[in-house]
């Protein structure tokens, strides 16, 4: 096991990793920018070293400074957290060259999965379903219909140069397809001066479902169930839960096996996430693979009982997975809300500033991951996430009730936050009834998407 690990990150995830290290008896090294001198991760780590000025490019993305810090303080491994250098193949490669263990997959895998088309091709080769669609541009309705029939209805017709819904049509069946194609093409021609089109299977009421996988260097891979991350605002996740209430045991087994197959196909190691789009009819399609720990990992920790960060560290140190596939039991229901320093009334404008007072909810099944404290100054330089509030109940209903209660208790003063927005979502009948898809927010909270065309 490692003696000392450097955390190449900041904020709540750095705190989360430092705590895990301390519990494991591993010495932690925090790195920080000049703007983060008073940040909690700096105070909690066993050692801390400043790596540069406030801008990320000169601090948390500054590979030479971070590597130098690790060498100077003799850290044997680097945990990259999420964001920043966590999916940077070059950084992972530099770590390897410097005899520093990068806690994550190899640079080769990061590279491969980071390239969308290569990732897709790899998955197709491994027998993982991807959204069927055309590879080459289409110009002619007759030919397009043949393609549509090959792909299977319903299909969506899109302009190659498109965006914002223009030049886009859904065709439910062969009937009326040509009319829809021609109309979309005409719009594309007028709108973008380009009449090349493509079509793919139309996913009805898609849900963003991701499977957590964990792999060790010995080829063992387990999945720890799914997370439903459909509630998004402009592709930013707002609230996540596990399990997903429309996935039954059979589908979970099928999707989980696919996720494990995908991870094995690339020879994956460490924590990873396979993202799928789930159709209303329960078909699912591979979207992409995230080769890092994710923000929403605590919901999986609650329902699986596995400490993902510790597992990551163990696996990186060359140990076997501590869990076997047959031991994985998904139990209860967890929900996470992301609390950000932003103003939902003003188009979610970030609101850095001083936290003048704070009250955190607590009690049975309530978890708060945060780096803020009373008098903490939120710097304007980084991501606006302040806190993750995670609750765990015996079922979805209880989890919702806990989240309502916990959000009600949460007080952050001095800066604007999105707590009210989260509170509105968790209290909405739509959420409770489970009418969830990636267009949940525009559908039920249109007042929050004003001025944000093309969500």
């Amino acid at each position, binding site marked *: 096991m*490692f*003696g000392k690990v450097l955390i190449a990150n900041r904020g709540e995830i750095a705190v989360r990793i430092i705590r895990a290290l*301390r519990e494991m*008896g591993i010495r932690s090294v925090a790195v920080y920018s000049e703007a983060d001198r*008073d940040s909690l991760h700096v105070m909690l780590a066993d050692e801390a070293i400043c790596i540069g000025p406030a801008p990320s490019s000169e601090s948390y993305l500054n590979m030479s400074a971070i590597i*130098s810090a690790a*060498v100077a303080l003799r850290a044997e491994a680097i945990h990259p957290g999420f964001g920043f250098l966590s999916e940077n193949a070059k950084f992972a490669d530099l770590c390897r060259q410097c005899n520093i263990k990068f806690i994550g997959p190899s640079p080769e895998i990061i590279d491969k999965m980071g390239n969308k088309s290569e990732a897709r091709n790899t998955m197709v080769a491994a027998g993982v379903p991807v959204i069927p669609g055309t590879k080459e541009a289409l110009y002619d309705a007759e030919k397009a219909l043949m393609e549509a029939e090959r792909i299977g209805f319903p299909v969506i017709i899109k302009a190659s140069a498109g965006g914002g819904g223009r030049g886009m049509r859904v065709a439910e069946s062969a009937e009326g397809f040509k009319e829809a194609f021609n109309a979309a093409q005409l719009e594309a021609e007028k709108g973008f001066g380009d009449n090349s089109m493509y079509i793919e299977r139309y996913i009805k009421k898609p849900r963003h479902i991701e499977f957590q996988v964990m792999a060790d260097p010995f080829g063992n891979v387990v999945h720890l169930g799914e997370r439903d991350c459909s509630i998004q605002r402009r592709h930013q996740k707002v609230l996540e839960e596990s399990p997903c209430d429309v996935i039954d045991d059979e589908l979970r087994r099928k999707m989980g096996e696919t996720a494990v197959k995908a991870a094995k196909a690339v020879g994956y190691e460490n924590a990873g996430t396979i993202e799928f789009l789930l159709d209303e009819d329960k078909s699912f399609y591979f979207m992409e693979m995230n080769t890092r720990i994710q923000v929403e990992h605590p919901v999986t920790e609650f329902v699986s009982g596995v400490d993902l960060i510790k597992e990551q560290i163990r696996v990186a140190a060359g140990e076997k997975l501590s869990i076997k596939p047959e031991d994985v039991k998904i139990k209860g229901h967890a929900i996470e809300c992301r609390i950000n320093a932003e103003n939902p009334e003003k188009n979610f404008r970030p609101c850095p500033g001083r936290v003048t007072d704070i009250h955190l909810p607590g009690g049975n099944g309530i978890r708060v991951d945060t780096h803020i404290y009373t*008098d903490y100054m939120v710097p304007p330089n980084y991501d606006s996430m302040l806190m993750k509030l995670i609750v765990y109940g015996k079922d979805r209903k209880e989890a919702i009730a806990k989240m309502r209660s916990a959000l009600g208790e949460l007080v952050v003063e001095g800066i604007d936050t999105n707590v009210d927005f989260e509170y509105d979502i968790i209290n909405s009948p739509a959420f409770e009834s489970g009418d969830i898809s990636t267009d949940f927010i525009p559908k039920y909270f249109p007042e929050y998407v004003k001025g944000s065309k093309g969500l």
Partner: protein
Amino acid sequence: MFKDIIAKKKGQGPDFSRLKKVVVNEEQNEVKNAPEVPDNMWKKCNFCGKPILTEDVKKNLYRCPKCGGYFRVHAYRRVELLCDEGSFAEWDKEMPFENPLNFPGYKAKVEATQEKYKLNEAVISGECRINGAAAVLCICDGRFIMSSMGKNVGEKITRAIERATEKKLPIVIFCCSGGARMQEGIISLMQMAKTSEALKRHHDAGLLYISVLTNPTTGGVTASFAMLGDVILAEPKALIGFAGPRVIEQTIRQKLPEGFQSSEFLLKHGFVDMIVGREDQREVISRLIRLHDRELIKKSLSAFSKGEDLFGEAETDSVSKLSAWERVKLSRDAKRPSAKDYTDLIFDDFTELHGDRCYGDDGAIIGGLAFFKGMPVTVIVQQKGKNTKENIIRNFGMPLPEGYRKALRLMKEAGDFNRPIVCFVDTPGAYPGMESEERGQGEAIARCLYEMSGIKSPMVSLVIGEGGSGGALALAVANEVWMLENATYSILSPEGFASILYKDSKKAPEASEVMKITAADLKKLGVIEKIIKEDKPACKENLKDIAGLISRELADFFARYKDKSPEDIVDSRYERFRRF
């Protein structure tokens, strides 16, 4: 008072003194798994001081990925960057060591350097292909005793030049040097003469030499082969000079300004044709070789055939009915297309060459090489600006002596390679300023007329706007002179004419009528051969059409001249002006 409260309130966070730090056995740790940065993984940029990855530097053609600064490149790496794969065949790989002055310790130093860098001397030479073009190549390697020039460096370069002459090949030399090799004393000095002499023979054999100046090029190398290129290229921000900056500072007891003796400084002062970044060197060098390819010039010239002559005698009568004064005004109109507007449409791959190799680079005259329907041509134009900013650079189209000297240099170069020349005239006149007189405006123009008469390649000159006096004539001692319909060509401006003859410059409109300065008048006088029609006064809208007409006329011109011997070309030009 409030300040104090706020300062106190600005907490340093909670007190975590109870929290126990994790202690590890450092000693055990160190032995087991100490991280270590491999040698040479990181470098510190010596321009911006930032740490950079060696691998990134390599990928970025040995430039700093952060500030773009140019690092020195090892000779064999340059071969890789420049030559077609596997095409470089090295010559004189082994040269016996010589110590002409029996300088103590010199042998050991050379041997140690040879061993350290796996190089025999400070230069490598050989034959190669660059984008398919065959050439002899010499590359100096700065690691070898600052690539100073001793006997073996001079010998390798001289032999390479001699072989290039023998094989009728162009030569490219990448220069880099601290100067003479001190340990070889006066013998080192002799290398300057030796290499220069060899280059003279190479030049007299009608062959191309491209010199590429890299950081640093100084001392005896600058004062010999480095500055003798037919074309002199430089890498950005290289130090180039004869005396080193420290020597100059000690002598004049002043600090030198920023950028003194840089590539950019030399470009401004007329000694460098162009600054070429590493990413473009292969393309630019191979293009320059093609532009100097005699066979290509000969072959492509002979391929021109006479098309339909759209502008016969009838043209003179069909021009629009405008008064001379109206045409004067049109020829000066700021909206009238400038020379570059036409050349951009007519020629391909225009490669601008700067400087008069003497004093400076004039913005009012643009010169360079380009392809016209696949044939290399030299293009020299007078350029006006379209706005104040451009006009400051272009000096309102009024050339200084260095402009004429640049034009002259390029014309002579074209003559040496039998490359046809196309000139576009558009100037109110040569610049009448103090500095013009100081640097010999009259001499510069006279020298143009004198030397142009003897240039052995077909030459055509087109007046596109104002043809102002001697300043225009300096680009118009051509085999044929043409005018756009609304251009003018005169001994001086109508205003000047009026003030001399009528003592009133306001009588310019009347003067313009009697001066015979329009295309139609000049054609009648036999001063020009051709009028190129403007269906309406040249402007943005009909620019393309007019450029098309010029292209067609140029093709016809080359067809008329393709069979003429160089002597006939010179004689016919002589006769053309002898008539007047």
